[in-house]
């Protein structure tokens, strides 16, 4: 028995479900006695506990001659403590089936742990040892440093990585920490010594410079008590202060071409300096980017993939950091269409800057952003990631309560103004990694800017 339905009509959406992103009754924020900012969220579906440690000092604080230090520090955290060897730490976690990782970014660093509830106490014992007592053993440092140097060497194999590295270098320059890759360079990593790492550790790993996020099947007071005990030896101090210089944008446009003989595809990056994470126009810019290149049905992807078939996928993004950021469009494009791809992307920049977006595009971008929220709060690690971002970027405590409102408030004028103010098609840095022999001349014919042949070292 099949009721007749009218297939020619798009089904109506039913009633929008009520959903509070982070139910306040499950959320709590507690200051521990040594200054740790603890944020917890009760999750009861499964007997698991997710922990994130967020240290608010990232690679932005590395001197440029020591680029890669924050990354190396994070990689060394679980390579030996005053009580446990590297193998013992790994064995303790693996035996329980506890997942443990360290992380580092331009803006912060830390670690994460996912444990079964039944193994929480034992897992916390090891985690708190790693947080408080890393010893940076010389022999492990030699091994990890070599591992990082080899990773840097292998990046030469990956055109997409080369393209992004060259792009940020051109955008921020050699005097700015954001101009360096997170891993550092061969020279900088080689020069980092044990004493420098332990010094960096003691000036950034402090309870008053840390947030701990806990999402799991555990009561806030109970976990607060456990952490008070486990981290009782961790002492406050004065964290490194930020000394990140503003650097003016280069004027005009230039194309940097990295030669990969016979490459069948060109990796392209096009963009310029952008905005910091706490910029007042965060929401208009986010909505505008959805239309431009932030989703599958964005202008850039529909044009270059679905209409022209030049690429498997193209997108644009705003990397918004603590101290500034950048905007770029990116993708891998069939070699023979390299010039056309660059042309089309810049054309899309110009279109949105000059003509803005349509009412339909605006509504669809806003609704998409709002409606996508529930599914981003499903798992403990998703919830913890969201809370960690609020902590790391020092966003308001009610950030997610007001998120929907803030998106809804974005008007057509706001988006058009943001596009006109922040997208600068005449002032782009273009990086192309591809077969220079066949694409250099066509790129010159575009007339965008000088085409400069360069190598992986920039």
């Amino acid at each position, binding site marked *: 028995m*099949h009721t007749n339905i009218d*297939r020619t009509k798009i*089904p109506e959406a039913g009633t*929008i479900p009520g959903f509070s992103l982070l139910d306040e009754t499950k959320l709590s924020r507690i200051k521990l006695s040594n200054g740790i900012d603890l944020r917890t969220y009760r999750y009861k579906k499964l007997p698991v506990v997710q922990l994130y440690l967020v240290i608010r000092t990232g690679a932005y604080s590395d001197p440029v001659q020591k680029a890669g230090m924050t990354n190396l520090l994070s990689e060394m955290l679980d390579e030996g403590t005053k009580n446990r060897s*590297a193998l013992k730490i790994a064995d303790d976690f693996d035996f329980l*089936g506890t*997942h443990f990782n360290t992380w580092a970014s331009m803006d912060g660093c830390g670690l994460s742990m996912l444990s079964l509830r039944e193994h929480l106490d034992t897992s916390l014992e090891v985690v708190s040892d790693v947080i408080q007592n890393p010893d940076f053993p010389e022999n492990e440092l030699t091994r990890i440093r070599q591992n990082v140097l080899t990773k840097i060497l*292998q990046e030469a194999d990956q055109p997409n990585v080369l393209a992004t590295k060259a792009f940020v270098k051109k955008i921020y320059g050699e005097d700015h920490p954001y101009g360096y890759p997170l891993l550092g360079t061969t020279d900088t990593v080689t020069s980092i010594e044990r004493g420098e790492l332990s010094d960096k550790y003691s000036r950034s790993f402090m309870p008053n410079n840390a947030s701990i996020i806990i999402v799991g099947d555990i009561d806030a007071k109970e976990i607060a008590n456990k952490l008070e005990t486990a981290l009782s030896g961790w002492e406050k101090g004065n964290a490194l202060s930020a000394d990140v210089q503003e650097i003016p944008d280069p004027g005009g446009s230039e194309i940097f071409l990295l030669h990969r003989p016979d490459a069948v595809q060109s990796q392209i990056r096009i963009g310029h300096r952008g905005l910091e994470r706490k910029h007042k126009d965060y929401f208009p810019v986010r909505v505008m980017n959805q239309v431009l290149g932030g989703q599958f049905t964005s202008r850039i992807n529909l044009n270059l993939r679905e209409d022209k*078939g030049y690429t498997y996928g193209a997108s644009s993004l705003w990397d918004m950091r603590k101290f500034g950021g950048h905007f770029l469009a990116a993708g891998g494009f069939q070699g023979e269409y390299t010039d056309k791809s660059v042309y089309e992307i810049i054309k899309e920049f110009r279109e949105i800057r000059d003509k803005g977006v349509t009412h339909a595009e605006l509504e669809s971008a806003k609704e998409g952003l709002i409606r996508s929220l529930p599914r981003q709060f499903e798992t403990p690690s998703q919830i913890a990631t969201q809370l960690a971002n609020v902590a790391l970027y020092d966003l308001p405590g009610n950030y997610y309560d007001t998120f929907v409102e803030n998106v809804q408030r974005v008007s057509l004028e706001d988006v058009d103004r943001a596009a006109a103010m922040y997208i600068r098609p005449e002032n782009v840095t273009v990086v192309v990694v591809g077969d220079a022999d066949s694409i250099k001349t066509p790129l010159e014919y575009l007339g965008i800017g000088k085409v400069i042949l360069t190598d992986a070292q920039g």
Partner: protein
Amino acid sequence: MIAIPSNYPIEFNESKYNDQGSMPLNGAVTYEKYTLDNGLDVILHIDRTVPVVSVNLWYHVGSAREVRGKSGFAHLFEHMMFQGSQNAAAGLHFKLIEDAGGTLNGSTTTDRTNYWATVPKNYLELLLWLESDRMGWLLPAMTEKKLHTQIDVVKNERRQNYDNRPYGLAFEILSEHLYPEDHPYSWTTIGSMEDIGNASLGDVTAFFKQYYGPNNASLCIGGDIDIEKTKSLVSQYFGSIPSGPPVAKMKPRIPDIRDAIYLTHEDNVQLPRLYMAWHTTHVYGHDDAEMDLVIDALSHGKNSRLYRSLVYEKQIAQDVSFMHISREIGSIAIVVATARPDISLHQIKQTIDEDIDAFVSDGLTDREFDRVRNAQKSSFTYSLQRVGGFFGVTDRLNEYNIFLGDPGFINNDLTRYLDTTKENIRSAAGRYLEPNKRVVLNIVPKGKTELAFK
């Protein structure tokens, strides 16, 4: 796979069965399964953690159904499934789901093709409309232009993920030598440039009629759903789609390698990498779980045998991984290790061989035995966090249903890992990881064949 901006595509999405088990610690996974008159299996699973719903649809067809000369077609067809159907115009699929705040993707392996989307729960009917329209009314919307654009997109996918990627051709080379020419696992799901380019609209029609009928599919809907209402919607949208011809199940066909095969390939890479592959069993077959545990003990974590000796102690390798790729008509175990600068693959191979020999003669220690089983147990619980997406609960219910005819195996699977013995694990390693029964592939930097093992 579709490349979704800012959500970079997974490169090679072979099914992996390592992360599975059974019985969450707080009770079994509940579901309801029934079959429509046209043969479509329907599985419903309630989870009200967040007000979203995920629709996951498996078609029991992958590149294993292709014939030589038409390689890559199952995957190209997956792309065509996003190009509109009779009532849903081209481009609407992405547009409507993204406007609903949803996320979606699809993937093709040797054995199956899956499609999924996750949206706020009030958009369930929209997903059912889109899925049913392309299951029942795809062909009227197919055009030459759409096909040719997707051929270009897929060729670019191949350039990006295989031809232009370091070591990107390794799996293709291994497959060619692991299987005889007429075995469908002898080519990869992406297919050859030439075959992709030769696909025609006639191929699209024939493939659709043969393999995309409801009787060759399994639909799983999970999340914040009302069972009765969902059943009624499923019946309205899918009930009138006619069955396709019966599709016979493929039988395992596992070749026997008698003499090891040694290959060397020069690539645009900085460091040499060694690949060694063995045939094992088939998905959910005898020894399948045991081989997963062998691989865990050998390569997962700093204390695993191979990681410890190659990367930690001798420091001759940058990385090592061992995978057990469980597939319907023949599984393989592959070890992959990248040499540190100036290290030859001969040294790497020697160390791996010694470690495997020791494992086969002595078996696991008690601590290793506990460790690998604990890892399976916790991974199983962790894997129940997500309802939708690749390897989410809906995806796995469909997997058990497609391969075993029983989604309920989700609640028994972990038993395979917990109830086995040290001796079963040791002897499985001995049966499959024999030195003369493998394909050894050296990938070396151009002009540096002296680094290869010969």
